[in-house]
């Protein structure tokens, strides 16, 4: 290299393997040498390809990599359906006390009372928040909560000797995990459409509901960003044919303290603690998909569940819960996530829970109003937004050739994470926008102004958007190539 040009975007970071040098051992991490006692025939012959780097190299590499991410802590992140709100640092600090971190899941109950007490109280509080009778905390994400829920529905019918119910109804707007879960549980998936106002098409529901209906999976507010107004009717239709109502709690944030799934008539629900209860999303996880049930489903809850007695707290297992659908994890689900959710709820308290629902809704309706004023078309203009709402770029796409992806990518240039795009599938060129209650009005204003400016930019020169982003470490990436020329692991240059 002899001359240089100014770096105009953040440097790419080499892979950790590019930093590796054979024979480098620069950590204070290895324990003292001990002989390998593995029998010769079982012994590994070639060392695995792990990096040989110094601690500083590793630290610097992953620190620099981290800086290539958008995150709540650095950016407004209105990713619809994901509830990207502030993750209070107190939750992390107190869930990571050395004693909790060192706690073995199979430690004797007498060494676990502090941990178990917290989980027990969390179960109780979640019952109250949702209006359900019992809760199990073990599912490790929303989708696993769904699995537990649908498995309980199945177990419930079978326990009553009803083996013929082999269908689960989902709405057209359902999140992909709903039908995927129903299939995983061995059910046939029956889809019902939504009407023009975003509610479930009741007539269609009536047509498909019947003796083969094991249950229906609903999100309310739905993923269309509206509150399902026919919920009472849906309940009587499904219950009427002997089916159960499953509540996908991904959108619980919208109605916290306002209306409870139990009161709407749901029989079984999951909650995404990483959304509603502000545990961090960790770049993709961990989450927690705690499940709640009505009385009649309580015996089927997945184990372990924490119980309280005169002697203290303990885990219930298969011996205590013979009808349980069983275990979904090797231990206690995402226990550390549960501590964070517990601390969060205690910190916002009764009043705070209600405010979550209120202010999440206020922010969404405000941002929707602002964007409507700016000329954006929302999917359901006659409806209230819940905690989120949908902008559709159908007209812009037709008139200007601009897509939801283009707008999303251009937003990144201005430091805003994009809303969810192309979900729900039934709204064309959609942006599902969820501001959450922890963002300030100023942030929403800045976002609205930027979106408006991007629209203007599209009107002037749509190619500007097509090639966005410009300011990130990489320009628009070629997804097609990623899938066609599969490069899934690093290989040394030949």
């Amino acid at each position: 290299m002899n001359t240089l040009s100014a770096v105009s975007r953040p440097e790419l970071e080499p892979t950790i393997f590019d930093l590796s040098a054979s024979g480098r051992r620069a950590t204070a991490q290895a324990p003292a040498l001990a002989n390998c006692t593995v029998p010769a025939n079982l012994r590994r012959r070639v060392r695995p390809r792990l990096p040989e780097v110094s601690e500083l190299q590793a630290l610097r590499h992953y620190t620099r990599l981290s800086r290539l991410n958008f995150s709540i802590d650095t950016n407004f992140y209105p990713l619809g359906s994901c509830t990207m709100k502030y993750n209070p640092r107190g939750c992390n600090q107190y869930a990571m006390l050395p004693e909790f971190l060192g706690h073995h899941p199979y430690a004797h109950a007498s060494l676990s009372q502090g941990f178990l007490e917290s989980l027990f109280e969390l179960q109780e509080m979640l019952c109250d928040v949702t209006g359900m009778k019992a809760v199990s905390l073990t599912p490790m994400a929303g989708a696993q909560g769904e699995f537990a829920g649908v498995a309980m529905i199945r177990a419930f019918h079978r326990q009553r000797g009803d083996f013929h119910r082999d269908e689960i109804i989902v709405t057209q707007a359902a999140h992909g995990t709903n039908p995927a879960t129903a299939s995983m549980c061995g059910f046939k998936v029956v889809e019902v459409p939504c009407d023009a106002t975003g509610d479930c098409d009741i007539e269609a529901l009536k047509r498909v509901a019947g003796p083969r209906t094991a249950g229906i999976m609903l999100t309310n507010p739905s993923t269309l960003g509206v509150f399902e107004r026919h919920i009472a009717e849906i309940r009587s239709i499904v219950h009427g044919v002997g089916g159960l109502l499953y509540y996908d709690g991904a959108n619980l944030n919208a109605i916290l303290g306002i209306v409870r799934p139990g009161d709407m008539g749901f029989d079984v629900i999951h909650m995404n603690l990483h959304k509603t209860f502000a545990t961090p999303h960790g770049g993709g996880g961990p989450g927690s998909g705690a499940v709640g049930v009505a009385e009649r489903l309580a015996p089927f809850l997945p184990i372990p569940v924490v119980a309280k007695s005169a002697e203290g707290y303990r885990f219930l297992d298969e011996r205590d819960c013979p009808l349980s659908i069983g275990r979904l994890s090797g231990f206690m689900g995402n226990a550390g996530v549960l501590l964070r959710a517990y601390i969060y709820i205690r910190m916002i308290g009764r009043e705070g829970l209600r405010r979550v629902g209120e202010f999440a809704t206020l922010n969404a309706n405000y941002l929707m109003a602002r964007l409507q004023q700016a000329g954006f078309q929302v999917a359901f203009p006659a409806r209230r937004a819940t905690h989120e709402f949908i902008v559709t770029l159908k007209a812009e796409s037709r008139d200007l050739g601009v897509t939801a992806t283009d707008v999303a990518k251009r937003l990144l240039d201005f430091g805003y994470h994009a809303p969810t795009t192309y979900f729900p599938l039934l709204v064309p060129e959609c942006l599902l926008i969820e501001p959450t209650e922890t963002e300030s009005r100023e942030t929403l204003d800045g976002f609205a102004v930027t979106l408006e400016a991007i629209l203007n930019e599209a009107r002037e020169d749509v190619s500007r958007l097509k090639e966005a982003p410009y300011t990130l470490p990489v320009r628009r990436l070629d997804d097609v190539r990623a899938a066609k020329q599969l490069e899934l692991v690093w290989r040394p240059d030949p």
Partner: protein
Amino acid sequence: MPFIPHTVEDVRSMLSIIGVSSIDDLFDEVPKALRASFLDNIPPALSEMEIGRIMSDRAARDGHVLNFIGAGAYEHHIPAAVWAIVTRGEIYTAYTPYQAEASQGTLQTIFEYQTMLASLTGMEVANASLYDGASALAEACLMSVRANKKLHQSRILLPKAVHPQYRRCTQGICELQKITFETIDFDPLSGRTSWSAFSSAESAGLTAVVIQQPNFFGIYEDVDALTDWAHQHGALVIAVVNPTSLAVLRPPGDWGAKGADIVIGEGQPLGVPLSGGGPYFGFMTTRMEHVRQMPGRIVGKTVDLEGRPGYALTLQAREQHIRRGKATSNICTNQGLLMSAATIYLSIVGAEGLERVANASMAKTQMLMDRLSAVPGIHFPLDGARFHEVVMSVPVPPERLLEQLANRGIAGGYDLTHDYPELGYCLLVCATETKTDLDINRYVAAVTDVLNSLQAAGA
């Protein structure tokens, strides 16, 4: 209002722009009858200080315990740098890297992780994590059914020496898809899966066999023979492995003539704290030929429109958000943070460090056995070669011993009587590199002491 930034004036003007007069009006589509929301059992808000004090007191109550339990969750030293990095906001508070350009940090980390895990297990590709080891086994069984399509009924051999909770979890999840599991007994002398039971299993129409190495008792299985037998009978081999052990054990990719087909395991030993059972992460690797059957996120390398390299989620057509009811799995949120921790852990310790961790753990467990051998009434019934865990026979009901050890601040082992009543009074005990000479002496002394007093009381 904790965490809600609105001023009174904000609320007023926002409502006026929306065109309503109160926040309550925003809920006018919610049927009145449903609006109840009694939250009577939720206590009023506490300050961070107050709840922090409560949690600190509870943590102190559980105490600093000297831990000798393994049984699938292992106490290893975690370099301080690991969690200093993963709790950085940019990692801790990002989400699934849907917007690749704004998520290169997460994506490249996953790509590096995939490389490390594939190499560690001797396979070609890895996914970006599953929930944990147990549920990963369930996913592997479901995957084996998709990958071994020739069969119209699904049967899987599941040795009894596989972790009992993994078996429960897997059976529970897979049963709904009509997979039948057949249990294979273990040899009571060696603790290995019984070769005679295995090789005499009905071999026709087998989908897969599960082999855990080392098995739940810490004993090495004869993986080559088992793998070859399975492949001869058209079954896929699902390997369940402890990632630390792979620093010194032949990786599943090298088992038998052709190697295992799907490898899964609990990733917790790689830099994830015990933390009462989670969050951990499950890993899964396989051969390229099966990649389209694999559940979970996968990251691929690609280029941007200027030709610069970059990373993106790929093969998304397998996943629920595209394929819905026909997806390979319903998994969406995974265990990304823990996967990041593992990647950093492996980068810092490296292959040699991991080897030392494995060897030191074996040595410490051996030391523990040697010293416990002198304690009257204690013996070690299984004589197979072992990794860092051992079945220990005790002269009293394990629960009573464990309770007394707990009173002395010691987590003494995993009680095997419920899962394996045929073993009699047995515990599963583990010592990793974290245990010092003194720790081991303290354990031996406590066991001796408790047994003496229990026997005195019994006499």
